C-alpha cells in the first residue's frame, strides 16, 4: 500500500463523492462544486498514474502531469462559464434551479415573443 495507491483510492473516492453531489444536490452552484470535486478526483488518478511511472530521476512521468495542468485550466474555464450562466439565470428568473417543473419542458421554449 504505497503512497501512490493510497492517493489513487482517495481519487476514486473523490470521484464517487463528486458524482453523488452532482446527482443529488438540486442547486446548480452545488452541482458545479461537486463537478470540481469530481474533476480533482480524476486529476488525482492522473497524478497517481504519473507517480507510478516515475523513472530516470524524476518524481513522476511529466506527460500525465502536463495533461493534468491543461485539464485543470479547462475545468476552471468550464466552472467560470457555468457560474456566469447560473448568475445570468438568477438575473433573468430570480431563481437558480435546473428542474424545469415550473413550465413543463414541452412548452418551455414556447415563449412566443
Amino acid at each position, binding site marked *: 500500500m504505497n503512497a501512490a495507491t493510497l492517493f489513487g483510492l482517495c481519487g476514486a473516492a473523490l470521484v464517487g463523492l463528486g*458524482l453523488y453531489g452532482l*446527482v443529488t444536490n438540486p442547486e446548480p452552484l452545488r452541482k458545479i462544486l461537486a463537478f470540481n470535486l469530481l474533476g480533482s478526483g480524476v486529476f488525482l488518478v492522473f497524478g497517481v498514474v504519473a507517480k507510478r511511472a516515475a523513472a530516470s530521476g524524476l518524481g513522476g512521468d511529466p506527460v500525465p502531469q502536463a495533461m493534468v495542468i491543461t485539464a485543470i485550466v479547462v475545468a476552471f474555464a468550464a466552472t467560470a462559464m457555468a457560474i456566469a450562466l447560473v448568475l445570468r439565470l438568477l438575473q433573468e428568473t430570480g431563481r437558480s434551479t435546473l428542474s424545469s417543473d415550473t413550465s413543463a419542458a*414541452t412548452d418551455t421554449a414556447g415563449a412566443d415573443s
Partner: protein
Amino acid sequence: MIGQTTLLASAFVVPFGMLLLCLWPQILNRMPSLLAFAPIPALAAVLLVATDSSFAIGSARFHLTFAMDRPGAMLLGVSALLWIAAGAYASQYLQNRPNHGRFVVCWLMTLTGCVGVFLAADMVGFYFLLALLTLGACGLVIYHETPSAWRAGAVYIGLALLAEAFLLMAFVLLASEIPGNSLLIRDAAAALPTSPQRDLILALLIAGFGMKAGLVPFHFWMPLAYSAAPTPAAAVLSGAVVKASILGMIRFLPLGTALPDWGTAIAAAGLFAALYGVVIGITQRSPRLVLAYSSVSQMGFIIAIIGMGMLTGDGRAALAAAFYAAHHVLVKGALFLSVGVIAATGSRRLWPMLLPAAIIAVGLGGLPLTGGALAKFVADELLGDSTASTIATLSAIGTTLLMLQFLRHLASTASQDPQATANAGLVWPWLATAAVSLVVPWTLYLTVPRGTLPDPLSAAVLWKALWPVLLGGALAMALWRWWRSMPQIPKGDIIVALDGGVRAAVTWGKALQRTDSVLRQWPAATVSLLILTVALGAAVLAR
C-alpha cells in the same frame, strides 16, 4: 434497336420531365390541358417496342433498369389508355376548380410512378417508384381537404408505408439471396424458390403486395380512398394504380414452380376476398362505395388466379391474371368516370348515358361477348373444375348482382335539373374508355397464343357465361324488394376496429411521453447514467 430503347425511355422520361417542369409556376398553369398527352409515349412504347427490350439510367455500378415483359406490356398498355382518357376528363374536371396546381403535380407523380412501376426491372427502382406512386396517390386522395379526405389519406399512406416496410425487408432478403450483387427482379424471382428463407420472403411479399392490393384484412383503405378522391383520380387509382401490386406479385412470386401450400393459401384468401367484397358491397348506398367493394372483390379474384397458378406451377397464370387485371383496369376506370358523368346529367337525358354504363357493368359480371366474359373464360380454363371454379362462378353471380345494385344507385344520383347535360369534355373520355373496355380484351386475346382453347364463341361457352348473369339479375330483383331490411355497414367496415387500436396507441403513447418527461428530470437522468455505467462495466468485464 436505338429507336426501341429511346421509345421505351420516353415512356418514363416524358411524364417525369413534365413533373419536373411543374416547378415553374407559369408552366404549371398550362399543365392541366396537357395531362392527356403525358401517357401517350407509354402507349406508343407498348405498341411498338418488342418485349424483353430494356434500358438503364445511371452508372455502371448502380443503375435503374427498365424492361418491358409480356404482363407488364399488357397492363401498361391498358393503363396508358385509361390514363389518357382520365387525363382528358381531369383537364375538363379542373376547369373551375381552385388550386389545381397541387392536383396536377400529384397526378403527374402518380402517372410517373405508375408507368415506372410497370416498367421497373430492378428492386430498388421498383421500391422507389412504388413510393413515388404512393405519395402521388395520397396527394390525389387528399385533394378535397375535407375531414373524411384527410382521414382517408392518413389511412392510405399509413397502410401503404407499412406495406413498403414489408417489401423493403423482402427485397433486402432477396438481395442477399442473389449471387453477385445484381438487383434485377428476374434474378430475385429465380433465386427465391431455392432460398433458405423462402417462406419468410414469400410471407413478406404477400403481406406487402396484399396490403397494396386490398386483400381482405387490409382492404378497408379502398372504400375510404375511392369515395374521398375526385372522380378522375378515383378512376385512375382503382384502375391502374392498384394493379401495380398485382404486377409486383406476378413478377416476384415464383409462378413457374409448384408451391401447393402457398398456392392454396393465396387462392383461398383471394376467393374469400372476392365473396367478402360482394357481400359487403351490396349493403352500401353510394355508387362509389359499391364500386370500391367491387374492386375489393375483383382484386381478390385476380389474387386467387395467381394463387391457383402457384398451386399448379402453371406458367400461364401470370398472363391470365394480367389479362383479367387489364380488363378490370378499363372497366373499373370507365365505371368511375360514369359516376362523374351521370352525376352531371339530368333525369331526361339519363338513358343514353346509363346504357353503356350498364353494358360494361354487367360485362364485369361475365355478360357473353363482353371483355368480362372473355376474362372469366381464360380464368376458368386455369381454375380447372375443382371447388375453386364453382366459387369463381359464385363470384360472377355476386359481381353481376353488385353491378346491378351499382346501376340502381347510379341512376338515383342523377342531377335534379332534368335538362342538365354533362359537359362534352367529360362525356367523350368516358365513352371512349367504355368502348375501349369492350374492344381491347378481344384484341389482347388474339395476341395471346392460345391455340388449344376451344373457340370462345361456341354455344357451350356462351351459355356457361350467360346463366350466372341471369341468376344474378334475378337475385338483384329479389334484393330490391326487401331493400329496407338490409343492415347498414359503415364505410370502412373493419376500420371501426382500427379506431379502437388507434385509441389504445394514443394512451400507450401518452404513457411513453410521461416516462420520457420523468427520465428527463435531472436526478433521474444522472441516476440512469450511473446505472448505465455499472451495466456497461459489467457487460464489458464479463465478456
